[in-house]
């Protein structure tokens, strides 16, 4: 979407024009959903948070400074709404903090061939408190002090939650590796059988012809 087109849509949204709102919603749905999905536990939750975010966007669209990138402004709103959602479930999050993290050995993650859906599924499987801190720290780049202020928790809690989140993710990656290895072995076995079968026949026929 071009800048000019975006500004026209924003002007329409300022006038509360429903068509402009829908066009803007559709245009930035994927971008916004990606943020909400990694903060939320599942897609339904993410869609709810997304709509709350867009509701805020349309309500405060006149405050948007056109000189700044729209995506940054929108992304910040989506993140804030996600954090609000986290705050609403704060009690539950604290109980999760009581969990003890198991120490998982370090591994090499640079060569892991995990796609978007795999990674998203892992993040979403994290307890909400861990997920929120991991998102803020690892993906959105906030410091522990900033996170502590945003979530109204101690910096120590933030560090602890990040550590536990990483441990859980490492475990999930290990599990995924194990599963993938099993799966790969299964493929190898089948293919070996097939290759063997194919290999046997030509050999048989060839042998027969040759012989």
């Amino acid at each position, binding site marked *: 979407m071009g800048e000019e087109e975006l500004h026209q849509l924003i002007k329409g949204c300022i006038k509360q024009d429903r068509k402009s709102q829908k066009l803007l919603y*559709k245009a930035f749905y994927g971008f916004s959903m990606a943020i909400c999905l990694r903060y939320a536990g599942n897609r339904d939750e993410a869609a709810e948070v997304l*709509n709350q975010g867009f509701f805020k966007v349309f309500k405060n669209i006149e405050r948007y400074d056109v000189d700044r990138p729209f995506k940054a402004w929108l992304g910040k709103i989506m993140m804030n709404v996600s954090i609000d959602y986290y705050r609403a479930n704060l009690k539950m999050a604290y109980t999760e903090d009581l969990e003890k993290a198991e120490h998982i050995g370090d591994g*090499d993650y*640079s060569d892991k061939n995990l796609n*978007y859906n*795999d990674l998203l599924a892992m993040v979403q499987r994290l307890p909400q408190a861990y997920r929120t801190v*991991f998102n803020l720290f690892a*993906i959105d780049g906030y410091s522990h002090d900033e996170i502590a202020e945003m979530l109204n928790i101690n910096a120590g809690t933030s560090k602890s939650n990040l550590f536990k989140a*990483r441990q859980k993710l490492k475990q999930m990656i290990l599990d995924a590796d194990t599963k993938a290895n099993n799966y790969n072995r299964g493929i190898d076995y089948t293919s070996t059988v097939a290759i063997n079968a194919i290999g046997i026949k030509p050999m048989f026929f060839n042998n027969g012809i040759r012989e």
Partner: protein
Amino acid sequence: MKENNDKELDNLFKNGLEDPVDQSGYLEDDWDALEKMLDKQKRRPGLIFWLPVLSSAAAILIFFGWWFFTPAVVTHNQIKQQQTVAVINVTKNRVANNADKIAENKKPANDNVASLKKENSSVSLHNKILLNGNTDTKKELAVNSSKPVSPRIINGLSQTANRSKLVNVQDIPKMNMNSSTETLANNSRPGAETLVATNYDVLANGIPGSNQYVVSTPVESKDIVSNSYKPAPVKTENTVTKLGFVKRPQLALTFLGAPELNSAGSLGNAKSGTNVGLLFSAGIFNKLTVSTGANYSVKPYNTDIADYHTTYKFKTNPSDIEADCRVLDMPINLDYQIYNKHKNKFSIGTGLSSYIMLHESYNYYYSDPTTKGPVAFTVPQSGKYFFGIMNLQATYQRQINSKVGLSIEPYMKLPLTSIGYSQAKLQTAGVAVGLNWNLNSLTKP
């Protein structure tokens, strides 16, 4: 090493999740849900415009509730009024003839008033008060009525006549007189208003609750004797029917008291009155409170002849008219809370009030004290003015504890319709001090 490992893990997720592959996940259902949220937000301001309608509907319900409970009381009063026969006789010659009898029958406890008559002249007062033109003073009373009077009343009169206690004018409280030579007949022109000088309550006769309207006309003689008769002492009943409010989750009960200023014109010419009442309040929605109840108001005010609307033709217009009204004010108000922190609340509100006129009387003052004319008038029929007054109020409330709070409420009552016999545009301003009782505290364990 460990830090690098963590960094690698973070980057794995950062890079992988920052670039979502499934951008086409748009669902029309999600937009529909958002559209509903947006529509809901749009409709919210509309709710404010609907609130007067809603409050009017609530007021109508209260009115019908009130109407349902009051007929018994009204009928009771009407019967009493119909039973009341007032006779006024003004005499010059027969006072002497009857003087002995008056003296004879005059007792300290005057529960009946016999009449002396003036030359068979009679005046009907609003077709309800009967003036007697009886010539037979021995029988004391004969009732001429334009309306059928029950035999019981007539018999009662006859019987009572023998043991009647005659009261001369000095015994009638608050009887107003002017030194005038005009006769009753002169004042009783067809269609002319009869001015009631005294709202002489039959309490003097030991019969509470019945009103008697006595015509006082300017006469020379002070020997005016009025007679009022009640056929039999009606059993005094406290027939005040309480409004039967259905018990609902009310939030607060407020007892209010207020000094107030009343005026039919500008507030510069205002007279002070008082207002006491009881209000129920219930919180609706987030910051809105609806309240209703009943206030008893004493509303004296001054007016001049320009603002005093009447069909009666004054020969000489009074220079000043003083009104004294007792009103039951039944408001229904809606308040919006604009501040609520700690124990302090501040809200502004508006609403409509219905006035039930309990008493209405006027005193007339003339620039020339020797002017011949009526001096007072008590309106016999009380009026009801539904939603005739607009209320504007601002309330500051300080919560003392979880149960009790104090409030200060400056308010104004602006006329939407004319009030009372004189069709006055009565406006009121005051500051109410209230004691609030949180009824929710009752339900707390």
